């Protein structure tokens, strides 16, 4: 029978130490060639020949021209009495073969009826491979597990053998579909169910399939590895047949094969007729979050072949799937005696880059754009998701999360709630018309020194996805946005991202916001509403995404907050910028005995011998980050009708508060920006509950949060009401009214006392006059100057030095 699927000789022996010295993994071989073939049914009980290794066992599936294909061709027909087993196990080669075939043929995604006419997922995939002439096919281990757990287990336990069979089956199918397909198709398995920690690798994992997460720290240069060697006789010039690598070594022919010549020791390697493959050694290190306290990161070497070479760069975080191998160390290359030591490495099958942030907000960047597999994200395994969902069901989850946020900073409950909303974020909306509404919530903390603002900032920075932390004093405009530099290596001008661009989809924490230079601050206008950074520098004109939430904190200009002045006067920020913050919190250090007592209690408890007792019921950092990232990724709440109604009603009511009955005075208590903020806040609140719809109570809470923040920052101290003008213009309505009054009073005086072109009048005199009038109240010189300035623009008076002239 011409079936050519010469199965590997499965003399598998993990215990023979010297066997691993040969060429690397079989299924990474790319150039198939008609190698020496073994009889197909011989391996069963063959004594463990000092191992030709499973590499030699590499299936060398030749392009089997014109092999008529039917399932029985590679079916090892059941009648055949001698079953083959993987050496040392009771795994039947035939059974595995059949199982793989079933899997490839029949696996379909979703709940498609088994007898559906549609082709299986992997058959389609194979067609695509053939079409694109690719050399590999990705196989999702989760699919395999779903379809056949037994096969999955066998593959993980005996990856070399099972993968070899897998490829044989694949090649058989391939050749049946396209008899002329010459490339060898490798199987690349990924997405194992269990990802091992590097620390946990131990001798029992040797020769098993493992999946690891880590960070690439070093890549070797690319090493050409010989696959086939061609020799030439120095005497007669005869070229030998290609000699394949066997066990990492090439058997140099001792004599010329040409019968007429047959010269001894005359063969010489011809380099440019040999075939080589790429090989690379990569060192992978544990990611920082896996390192236990008091440990240093472990590393492991990876062996990459062919397409995997240079798939990752140092610094990349990757998840790899491969086979863990141990290799004995020879004392000398020639001697057969081996040391008792082993070197371990992982033969890499598949590499997947994961994003760098702790909270994954982006889809992981795939190395190769294989087929649909981006849906799954390794970070949320089922158990975790279940746990998170259970957590979200708890009625007090909102409070619990608030408690867990920076637990060592006590009080500031409402600020923490606001920050929590910022972490969860609202929904960004992009209308078809092109208009977009940001979903990011910006928060400004203003407060007295020593009120742990910076600590809060640091904490959020640690927690947030792609958090960037900068200090206003040390940041320049270009440092925040983008700058153009010359690449030191190529000399080209390149655009380097600044902090705001780097924190795209994250939170940019800016400390000492008030100390920032004006030019740097003005850059923030665009970022905070349009969410882009536009650059036009040195021939580069670009608009970069900066979908970032800004968390800033500022100290009042006079070191302590002066409650008699407005926020704007206190922190010297332009109102235009201030109005872009959804929430502005004033953290004031008010003498409050209750709070002091709590602080004292906290510190005493901290220092008394039992620190555990004071640990409240809080979630640890890891759970918190996963919770947040899961919510950000999977929960996209929408407004329910009831909530929308409440929102409108609440907004109208808020606006109404500005109208005082019987008074023409109109105070703006809310602006359309507030209603956007409210929507964002209520969406974030729904996300906290893992709820897909925004309920009425979310909106109510959002109003409360907004009001708390506004009450602190936008309260007009002379009237005690909220006045958005304080934030949008820096001047409250009552203040403005006072100014108007003053201006009209001044005008009256001027009209009375001065003639057009007549003698001038000193300002002090005007002030005296004003003070006589009771309606204006206390008047300061500076206020008067302002009023006169207004009148001057009206063209009534001219101010020369200290004297007024009517014109």
């Amino acid at each position, binding site marked *: 029978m011409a079936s050519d699927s010469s199965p590997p000789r499965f003399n598998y022996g993990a*215990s023979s*130490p010297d066997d691993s010295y040969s060429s690397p993994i079989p299924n990474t071989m790319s150039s198939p060639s008609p190698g020496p073939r073994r009889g197909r049914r011989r391996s069963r009980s063959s004594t*463990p020949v000092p191992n030709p290794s499973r590499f030699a066992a590499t299936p060398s599936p030749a392009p089997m021209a014109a092999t008529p294909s039917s399932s029985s061709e590679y079916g090892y027909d059941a009648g055949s009495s001698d079953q083959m087993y993987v050496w040392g196990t009771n795994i039947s080669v035939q059974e595995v073969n059949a199982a793989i075939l079933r899997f490839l043929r029949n696996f379909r995604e979703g709940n498609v009826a088994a007898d559906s006419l549609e082709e299986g997922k992997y058959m389609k995939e194979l067609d695509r491979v053939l079409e694109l002439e690719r050399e590999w096919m990705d196989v999702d281990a989760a699919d395999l597990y779903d379809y056949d757990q037994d096969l999955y287990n066998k593959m993980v336990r005996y990856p070399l053998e099972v993968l070899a069979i897998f490829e044989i089956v694949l090649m058989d199918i391939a050749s049946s579909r396209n008899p002329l397909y010459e490339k060898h198709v490798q199987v690349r398995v990924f997405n194992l169910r269990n990802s091992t920690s590097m620390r946990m690798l131990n001798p029992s994992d*040797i020769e098993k399939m493992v999946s690891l997460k880590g960070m690439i720290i070093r890549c070797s240069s690319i090493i050409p590895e010989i696959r086939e060697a061609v020799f030439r006789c120095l005497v007669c010039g005869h070229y030998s047949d290609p000699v394949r690598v066997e066990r990492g070594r090439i058997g140099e022919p001792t004599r010329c094969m040409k019968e007429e010549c047959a010269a001894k020791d005359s063969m010489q390697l011809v380099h440019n007729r040999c075939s080589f493959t790429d090989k690379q050694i990569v060192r992978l290190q544990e990611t920082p979050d896996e390192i236990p306290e*008091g*440990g240093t990161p*472990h590393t492991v070497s990876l062996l990459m072949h062919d397409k995997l070479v240079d798939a990752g760069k140092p610094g990349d975080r990757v998840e790899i799937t491969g086979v863990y191998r141990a290799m004995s160390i020879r004392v000398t290359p020639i001697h057969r005696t081996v040391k008792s030591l082993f070197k371990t490495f992982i033969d890499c099958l598949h590499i997947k880059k994961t994003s760098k942030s702790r909270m994954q907000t982006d889809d992981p960047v795939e190395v190769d754009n294989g087929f649909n597999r981006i849906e799954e994200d390794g970070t949320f395994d089922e158990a975790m998701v279940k746990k998170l969902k259970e957590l979200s069901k708890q009625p007090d989850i909102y409070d619990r999360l608030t408690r867990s946020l920076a637990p060592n900073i006590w009080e500031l409950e409402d600020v923490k709630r606001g920050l929590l909303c910022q972490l969860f974020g609202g929904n960004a909306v992009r209308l078809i018309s092109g208009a977009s509404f940001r979903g990011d919530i910006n928060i400004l903390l203003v407060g007295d020194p020593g009120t742990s603002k910076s600590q809060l900032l640091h904490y959020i920075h640690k927690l947030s996805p792609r958090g960037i932390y900068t200090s206003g004093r040390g940041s320049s405009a270009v440092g925040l946005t983008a700058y153009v530099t010359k690449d030191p290596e190529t000399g080209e001008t390149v655009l380097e991202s600044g902090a705001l661009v780097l924190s795209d989809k994250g939170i940019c924490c800016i400390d000492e916001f008030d100390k920032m230079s004006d030019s740097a601050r003005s850059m923030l206008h665009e970022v905070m509403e349009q969410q882009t950074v536009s650059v036009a520098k040195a021939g580069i004109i670009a608009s970069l995404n900066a979908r970032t939430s800004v968390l800033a904190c500022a100290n009042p200009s006079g070191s302590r907050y002066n409650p008699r002045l407005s926020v704007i006067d206190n922190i010297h920020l332009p109102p235009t910028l201030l109005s872009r913050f959804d929430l502005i919190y004033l953290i004031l250090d008010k003498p409050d005995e209750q709070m002091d007592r709590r602080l004292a209690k906290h510190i005493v408890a*901290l220092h008394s*011998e039992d620190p555990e007792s004071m640990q409240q019921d809080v979630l640890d950092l890891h759970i918190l980050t996963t919770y947040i990232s899961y919510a950000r990724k999977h929960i996209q709440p929408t407004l329910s009708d009831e909530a929308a109604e409440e929102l409108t009603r609440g907004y109208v009511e808020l606006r109404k508060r500005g109208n005082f009955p019987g008074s023409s005075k109109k105070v703006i208590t809310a602006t359309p920006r507030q209603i956007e903020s409210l929507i964002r806040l209520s969406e974030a609140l729904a996300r906290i509950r893992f709820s897909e719809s925004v309920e009425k109570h979310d909106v109510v809470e959002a109003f409360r949060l907004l009001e708390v923040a506004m009450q602190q920052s936008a309260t007009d101290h002379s009237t005690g009401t909220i006045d958005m003008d304080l934030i949008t213009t820096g001047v409250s309505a009552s203040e403005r009214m006072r100014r108007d009054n003053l201006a009209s009073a001044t005008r009256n005086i001027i009209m009375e006392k001065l003639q057009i072109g007549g003698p001038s009048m000193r300002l002090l005199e005007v002030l005296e006059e004003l003070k006589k009038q009771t309606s204006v109240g206390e008047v300061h010189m500076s206020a008067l100057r302002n009023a006169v300035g207004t009148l001057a623009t009206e063209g009534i008076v001219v101010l020369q030095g200290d004297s007024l002239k009517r014109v």
Partner: protein
Amino acid sequence: MVGKPYDCLANPLGAVRYSFENAVAFGADPSSLNGKDWGAVDLFRNTLLDQGSLSKVPVLSARNVGLLQPNMLVRFRGMIQDMLGNEFYAGAFKDGSLWRTNKYVDVSQYLMGSSPDMLIWERHLFYCVPIPGLNSWAEESTDVAISQPMGSTPEPREKRPRDENEAMREMDESLETSPGSKRMRNDSHPSHSQMEEAAALSTCGAGALPKTEADSFSCLVKIYDNSDSELRLNDVFEFVGVLTFGSECQADNDETMDGFSGELSVHMPPGKVPRLHCIIHRKLAVHDFVHGLPMEPKPQLIKEVRQSLLAHLTAILGNDTVAAHFVLLHLLSKVHARIEDFAVGKLSLNLTCFNKERASTFGNFLCSTVKELLPFTHKMLVTIDYLNKASFAPKKDYERNRLMTGVLQLPESSHVVIDETQLEAGTLNSDGVQNARLLTSLTEFQKLEYDFKYYKMDVVADVQLLILSEGKSNIMPADLVVPFRPSSEAAGGAVLAEALKAWRWYLVTVRSLPHSIDPDLQKVVENDLVYARQSKRSLTSQDFSRWLTMGRLVSLSLGETSLSLEHWQTVKELERLRGERLG
């Protein structure tokens, strides 16, 4: 020992082999022995610890490494400087019909064919260095030990090395950075000039933490049967095990791995870095380094010792009693708990009003006194140049796959004196800024950021920091800032060896006492804090924390385990005096 078929001291491997064969003979399945002990450790534990022959085991040190034989039992006290992961080796194999083990050796003692019955076991590698800053008085004496095991197996070579060793020791002694210490211990009446000499010497070595020859010595410790979770970075351990100089083959660079030359044998030639196959290890704490005088901590005795130590400190500080009190509290401080980012119990001290002149007199006296009192001490002379050039935090070198140490990689309970008096105006480069930042975070959080190139990792530390500066230190925001007001010349006075021993014992013992605050007193303290804050708004939680830490230390210093009202009053009084000085 007669009649035993093995000798743990002279032939440790024989004993291992014996116990292994015994275990197999009694039916243990070799394949189940991975990561388990078959009785060998008990055997050694029994001989060394219970029968007290540990002291007969020679101590491995830079001085005698050339004299020790491979495969002998040695002990080594060191700090884990780096962890090199694990290593797989052929743990057990069948030689004919007999099971053999390769545990505790580098190279198999028997010819290993490619036997099919071979079990792969693992062991963990730790790169250990002698304890940084270990003072000479706390060192384990090596001389007794080295002759003992040799005596049992007489060799012709034996005599000469010992003489050599003696000679070397003498030389070392004279080169010791502080000869005063030795003399003080030996003749117990050091003169004033000797003290000064010691002080002067320690200044010339300053600038960098002392890096003598001995410090470049290191040892690769291989730990068996233990998950590495109980051994942590920067821990100080005593390892007892088999010494080898590893014949790790030179022809290591085989075809597969030639991408990296960073293999062990290249950067750690076995000749320079001996291997120690550890059989027993135990974690050492500070009190393991204070020898002699195992006294009962009687309250009366403790108070007496405290009095005399305080008197000594006062004398050294030119009759500044307040400063002496604070120094004493500072010497007793340690991080006893961590809650979130906050290290509870730290008490770094910044003595201000130190100019160059005072630093060279009072500062040096203080340094040498601290050196005499605590086992691990350092002095760091901070200058612009030093900040720019030194590497403070450990840094991972991926070329060599090693964590390169930094001057601040220190074991628990290290004491560092930081002399800022020579700091002048200048420009810091990026390294300098980074180093200054490291110092700041070390003072604030007792954490040091290790540099792993692609990311940084915070590693907790417990280092007592004493800062001498002219004004309040800007780099290091210490918990306590005390202006120094001496009223007389520094007077060291004669220190009796006995007194020194008592003080060391006192510091070590009192420091580790438990402490608690009664609920009643908690109320009092709380009220006091609230009252204080009502009257002075600028008080922060840091101030309160400092008060409570001081309260704890005041009661500990008197040998008492719970805070009393009297101690609390003392704290308030001390703070008042300090506040007066700060003006």
